[in-house]
């Protein structure tokens, strides 16, 4: 069995192709730059307040952060399976995979809300410290992207149920899937940066 890291031979297939709409990729690049700027603002601000950041980070709920990472990764996986099913002409099956992906994304929202409620109950607010300001702004900015992603997944689910996606009409589902993977991608940096790095 080949390890997954070995790339498939690029010559063994059709020409290189950007999946989905070109516009979504420019949007994704803009989003990555915005998240990148936030991450670096956090990292360099931390460099000036290492003790404060380390101390207050200890109070974060790493279990819910890790659980949310697993939920997003699993959701991304299920959406990949949906795209593969659509590519194979199985639109109904694609709808079921998307529903699974939506459920995991909704699970992220529920876990995050519990985390916020616990934090607010502990008196955390935007003005309580530099660390908490960053924690709230960064995670809430990401949270809003998850909400938008869920709206997109719901639209994809509806489209797949109506048989809108297939081997010759992959653009819509590829475009929505690319956005959802971007939401996952930025969380993969946010989690170690804010919850674990010390």
């Amino acid at each position, binding site marked *: 069995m080949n390890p*997954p890291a070995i*790339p*498939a031979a*690029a010559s063994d*297939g*059709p020409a*290189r*192709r*950007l*999946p989905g709409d070109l516009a979504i*990729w420019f949007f994704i*690049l803009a989003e*990555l*730059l915005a998240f*990148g700027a936030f*991450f*670096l603002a956090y*990292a*360099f601000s*931390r*460099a*000036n307040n*290492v003790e404060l950041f*380390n101390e207050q980070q*200890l109070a974060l709920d*790493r*279990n819910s*952060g*890790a659980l949310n*990472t*697993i939920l997003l*990764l*699993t959701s*991304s*996986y299920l*959406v*990949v*399976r949906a*795209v*593969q099913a659509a*590519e*194979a002409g199985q639109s109904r099956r694609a709808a079921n995979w998307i529903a699974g992906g939506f459920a995991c994304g909704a699970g992220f929202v529920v876990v995050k809300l519990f985390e916020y409620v616990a934090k607010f109950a502990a008196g955390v607010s935007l003005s309580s410290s530099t660390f908490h300001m960053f924690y709230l702004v960064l995670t809430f900015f990401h949270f809003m992207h998850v909400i938008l992603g869920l709206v997109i997944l719901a639209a994809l689910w509806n489209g797949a149920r109506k048989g809108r996606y297939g*081997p*010759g009409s992959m653009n819509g589902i*590829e475009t929505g899937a*690319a956005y959802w*993977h*971007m939401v*996952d*991608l930025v969380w*993969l*940096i946010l*989690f*170690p*940066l804010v*919850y*674990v*790095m*010390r």
Partner: protein
Amino acid sequence: MQTRDSSAHALPHSDHGTPLRATVIWVVLIAATIVTWSVGESGASGPAIVGLLFAIAFGKGAMIILDYMALRRAPLMWPLLALGWMTLVCALIGIAYWKGLAA
């Protein structure tokens, strides 16, 4: 279970890989997440640990970019831009961390 392997060449394109490949990647991503979580729980710190954390984050991100986002078969500019973003962000976080150590 999987019926499309034999018909893969009949499809107009297969930029999204196989279900098996996607599943193997998912298992690796979850295992990597458990490593990051256990580092957090142990309270370990220091440059080597932070290097490990962001090496893991980079590897996970590369898998998402190349496979789940299907940029492996996209025009080269796109995987390079996404991987370049990951590299730059991880490297600058490393520099900021190092700056914090010196402070």
